[in-house]
């Protein structure tokens, strides 16, 4: 686990007042003189700790729900076995075939275009965009993806960014199928990284590295440059910064909201009956995740392209981000949680603890003077 101390300090500035969301029972409004009893009675603090151990809103965001067992009786069990046979024996090979076919077509078109059309940039870009959309469609077909798109199709205009909630890397593939976006992503190792550095570069994607503290400034500069450019592909950002289990949204990072451009929200909601599309990156790799998707029945989801939003006068970027998060959560029917997604990788800032300590200290001192 990477311990990023300097970025913890930066995270402080990102956060709206968390105390508005968390219960502050440790500040009991006391009456009268301070007694020994009041100092010994640590029960509210203990209760908060106990509550956190038993259930907390942060871990709930990353819980992949196990499928309920339904197959433990005489007639359902053989049916389930038959289902397994169909999924692994018939569907899976067909899907692998489709995917391989798709890759062959894609590579045989992409490589010549990339090398031969070096001079004609505009034409090259158009063809590469179409090819990326093609390979994404092949990917979606390989999971039998049933995607319902609602709302106007995104178009490439300057000074606009798209934001969406994030459940898995396949979000990007599903959206890319419809329009070739330039996305900002974490640089991954392995074959994913290879694809990132070769093919996705052509669409104009931007990479960042979560564990590097200085990276933030470089990335925000790149974002700004991209948004200004007239013929760049529309920029897609996942402001949560990490994959969440599609029942909750964690706090949006303000980076996407302080570029001075219009923000177009996109809400994505997966139907869990068919498959749980949440990619728990701590549990399995992306390859395992893809294989899991390819051996389930279907990936069914809804994508809503929502009304573009501008920052209201007098609104801070953080408030703007929260407002857009509210719009996306309302449309997708998921709940909002006040935690920062990066807490998956680092500890919460000590400032939060200090706020509680300060409140208690002040109440003690005040009651001391209340004589």
């Amino acid at each position, binding site marked *: 686990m990477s311990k990023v101390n300097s970025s913890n300090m930066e995270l402080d500035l990102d956060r709206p007042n968390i105390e508005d969301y968390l219960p502050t029972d440790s500040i009991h409004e006391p009456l009268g003189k301070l007694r020994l009893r009041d*100092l010994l009675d640590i029960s*509210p603090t203990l209760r908060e700790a106990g*509550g956190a151990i*038993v259930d907390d809103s942060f871990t709930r965001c990353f819980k992949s729900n196990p*499928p309920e067992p339904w197959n433990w009786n005489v007639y359902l069990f053989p049916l389930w076995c038959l289902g397994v046979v169909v999924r692994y024996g018939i569907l899976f090979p067909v899907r692998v075939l489709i995917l391989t076919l798709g890759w062959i077509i894609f590579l045989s078109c992409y490589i010549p275009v990339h090398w031969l059309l070096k001079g004609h940039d505009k034409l090259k870009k158009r063809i590469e965009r179409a090819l990326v959309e093609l390979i994404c469609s092949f990917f979606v077909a390989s999971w039998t993806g049933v995607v319902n798109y609602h709302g106007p199709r995104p178009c490439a205009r300057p000074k606009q960014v798209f934001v969406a909630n994030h459940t898995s890397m396949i979000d990007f593939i599903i959206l890319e199928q419809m329009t070739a976006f330039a996305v900002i992503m974490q640089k991954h190792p392995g074959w994913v990284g290879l694809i990132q550095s070769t093919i996705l570069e052509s669409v104009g994607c931007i990479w960042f590295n979560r564990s590097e503290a200085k990276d933030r400034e470089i990335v925000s500069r790149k974002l700004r440059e991209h948004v200004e450019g007239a013929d760049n592909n529309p920029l897609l950002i996942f402001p949560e910064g990490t994959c969440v289990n599609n029942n909750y949204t964690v706090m949006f990072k303000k980076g996407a909201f302080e570029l001075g451009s219009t923000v177009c929200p996109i809400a994505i909601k997966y139907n869990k009956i068919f498959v749980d599309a949440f990619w728990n990156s701590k549990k399995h790799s992306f390859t395992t995740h893809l294989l899991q998707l390819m051996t389930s029945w279907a990936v069914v989801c809804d994508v809503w392209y929502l009304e573009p939003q501008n920052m209201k006068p007098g609104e801070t970027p953080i408030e703007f981000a929260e407002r857009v998060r509210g719009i996306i959560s309302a449309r997708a029917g998921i709940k909002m949680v006040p935690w920062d997604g990066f807490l998956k990788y680092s500890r919460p800032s000590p400032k939060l603890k200090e706020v509680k300590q300060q409140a208690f200290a002040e109440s003690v001192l005040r009651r001391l003077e209340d004589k």
Partner: protein
Amino acid sequence: MLGFPTNKTLLRDCTDGKKVKGLRRRNKGLKAKRTVSTLILSKNLIEIMGNTSSMLTQYDIEEVQEHCNNTISQQEIVSLYQRFCQLDRNSGGFISADEFLSVPEFAVNPLSQRLFRMIDGLNFKEFVAFLSAFSSRATLQHKVEYIFKVYDSDGNGKVSFSDLLDVLRDLTGQFISEQQRELVLTQVLEEAGYKKDSTLVLSDFMKILGNSGLKMEVEIPVD
């Protein structure tokens, strides 16, 4: 159906009954590892078969319930087990420091370090017993004992001035100076009739905290 090892092994092997604290924790770790491979294997098989409900048998649930004096209902024990498994990411049979501190709400609690020392390395049965003080069925005596244990970090049955000071320091951080803390404590102790260098025992705590209600109830979510 396929004869998975029940969680009885998890409950039994990890409580080797030794009272010596340091030895207990080390032994627990070693013994827990033996069940890890079988647990992981059975967990994986269960996931493939699509049955990921609790691996606890009725026998296990009743054993745990008895251990915490029936303060926690059976359904709550099942929920707590799911929570325990969720927190215990490396399936070691106990929840380690890192895993507790990865819960942000716990990590920002001022008393997290003290509580942490009490819960580190507990297996599931003891975990439930630890949380039983927060049940609505727990007696006032039980809750006061629990608070006493939080103060009495060395477990010798006596809470000294320095223990009280330590807890107050955890709660107030750098916002009160050390001298002010000592002053406040001495003052309230004297008002309550104790001298600065007197040590408090459980009966004192009962006397001080016993009459008014303690707001210490946590509801365990039951699916």
